């Protein structure tokens, strides 16, 4: 691969000649590899950021309560999460616009407004849970959250306001790769390999059968693996990065690799939970799980899990806050790009700043009802997900809008199946939380 940089007029622009900076390579494989590396980012980020603080808590709880029995559920979610985000890829590349803008334009202001309010509400509550996790992990590490939380919030603002999409993306991709430390953690805990393979490939019921607790956890796993903000985030991210029609296959590969990484990392979190269970600990939260693991392994593992909790929350916060800012900017018609400096996109960055600062502020309020907020977020996200996907599904069948990129019959079959299953699960989840007396304990 040559390092030579070529600048030449862009093809196909007859009225205006814009300089295009390209990198010259000699072989097709180098061209493909370099193209992929240039397109790579939005898919990985949306998937890894989905393993946020709530996900760390849910997956490790699943491992701590049911060992490796629910690994197959996570594996089953790999195609689900990929299929949904792949639709977003096509929509984003074909229109060059974000999801909120598309709902506004194609369904009208009334539906657009509802979608935006739903998104902003759940996003804000989710951000509170991210900072709650940061607070918890910092506490266990002996750092005063009153200092640590504002510092993390300041760092999150700094990585976004640099006026360079590439700078933000590189920083976040680096944080995504840090998430691979979960593999080291899982390996260090001497995982029962045969049990893991069995738990992943053979669906089985844990001892005790199908209890309401198990049902709740399965739904929570589904809810945490596929979240409404992901649709808005990836489409806006693709639009901001200005991915081209020729990039579709690489963006799909990016999304698929991201899905594989996030599902495998989720499995590693379950393995960590399983390790604490095997040593007789009862799960309360992932920070406490880290402390428990520290008692029978090295202090390194304890700190690694706590740091990974913070990393997960940071990734979740930057992605969720950006999905809010992009969506709000698209709807209000404000300039909304990470490529723009602060002075040229004040509204866009203001929403990002307010999202981060307000969520961090709520966590620092003494005796704030964080547990209630976490519960509310899980249910709201579960309830709203199917409706968000229905808008996506309708947009993807809009031939006037997407032409050859519209869904094919097999896409629709897969997606409607996913929607029906998610709808049924969200209904059960909502009913379980809203009317627990309907579900007597086992």
């Amino acid at each position, binding site marked *: 691969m040559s390092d030579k940089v*070529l600048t*030449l007029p*862009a*093809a*196909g622009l007859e009225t205006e000649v*814009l300089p*295009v*900076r*390209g*990198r*010259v*390579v*000699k*072989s*097709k494989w*180098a*061209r493909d590899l370099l*193209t992929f590396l*240039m*397109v790579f980012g939005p898919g990985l980020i949306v998937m890894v950021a989905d393993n946020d603080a709530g996900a760390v808590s849910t997956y490790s709880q699943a491992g701590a309560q049911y060992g490796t029995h629910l690994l197959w559920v996570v594996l089953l979610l790999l195609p689900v999460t990929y299929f949904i985000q792949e639709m977003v890829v096509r929509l984003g590349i*074909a*229109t*060059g*616009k974000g999801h909120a*803008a*598309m709902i506004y*334009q*194609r*369904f*009208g202001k009334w*539906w657009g407004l*509802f979608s935006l309010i*739903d998104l902003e509400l759940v996003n804000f509550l989710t951000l509170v849970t991210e900072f709650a996790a940061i607070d918890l992990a910092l506490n266990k590490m002996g750092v005063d959250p009153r200092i640590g939380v504002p510092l993390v919030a300041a760092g999150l603002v700094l990585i976004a306001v640099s006026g360079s*999409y*590439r700078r933000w993306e590189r920083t976040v991709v680096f944080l995504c790769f840090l998430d691979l430390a979960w593999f080291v953690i899982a390996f260090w805990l001497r995982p029962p390999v045969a049990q893991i393979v069995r738990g992943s490939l053979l669906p089985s019921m844990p001892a005790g059968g199908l209890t309401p607790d198990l049902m709740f956890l399965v739904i929570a796993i589904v809810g945490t693996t596929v979240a409404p903000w992901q649709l808005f985030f990836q489409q806006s991210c693709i639009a901001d*990065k*200005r991915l*081209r*029609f*020729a*990039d579709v296959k690489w963006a799909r590969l990016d999304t698929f690799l991201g899905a594989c990484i996030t599902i495998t990392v989720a499995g590693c979190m379950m393995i960590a939970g399983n390790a604490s269970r095997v040593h007789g600990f009862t799960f309360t939260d992932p920070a406490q799980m880290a402390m428990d693991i520290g008692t029978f392994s090295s202090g390194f593992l304890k700190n690694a899990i706590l740091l990974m909790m913070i990393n997960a929350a940071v990734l979740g916060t930057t992605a969720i806050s950006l999905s809010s800012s992009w969506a709000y900017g698209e709807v209000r018609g404000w300039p909304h790009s990470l*490529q723009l400096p602060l002075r040229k996109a004040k509204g866009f960055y203001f929403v990002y700043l307010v999202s981060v600062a307000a969520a961090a502020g709520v966590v620092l309020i003494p005796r704030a*009802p964080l547990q*209630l907020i976490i*519960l*509310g977020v899980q*249910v*709201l996200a579960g*309830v*709203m997900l199917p*409706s968000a996907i*229905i808008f996506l599904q309708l947009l993807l069948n*809009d031939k*006037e*809008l*997407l*032409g050859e990129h519209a869904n094919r019959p097999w896409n629709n079959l897969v997606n409607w199946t996913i929607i029906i299953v998610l709808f049924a699960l969200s209904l059960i989840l*909502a009913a379980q*939380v*809203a009317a627990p007396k309907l579900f007597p304990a086992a």
Partner: protein
Amino acid sequence: MATMTNPIERNEFRHHFVVVHPLDDAPETKVDTDSLGPMPMTMSVRVSLLSLRAYLVLMMLLVLYHVLDLAKVFG
């Protein structure tokens, strides 16, 4: 379509490829969504979406009530 994967026609680059980062590339023509206007929807789609909206509002109120109940707001 921009120049991303097109071989360059100049002699010195005849057997070379130029790869352009999306942010460095010329903007390509996308679907003109502004001119499309709102999506035509059949009555059944409208009714389904309205039912979905009603379901969502109901579930949100239910969740809000449950959370406030857990917070012992109602005593």
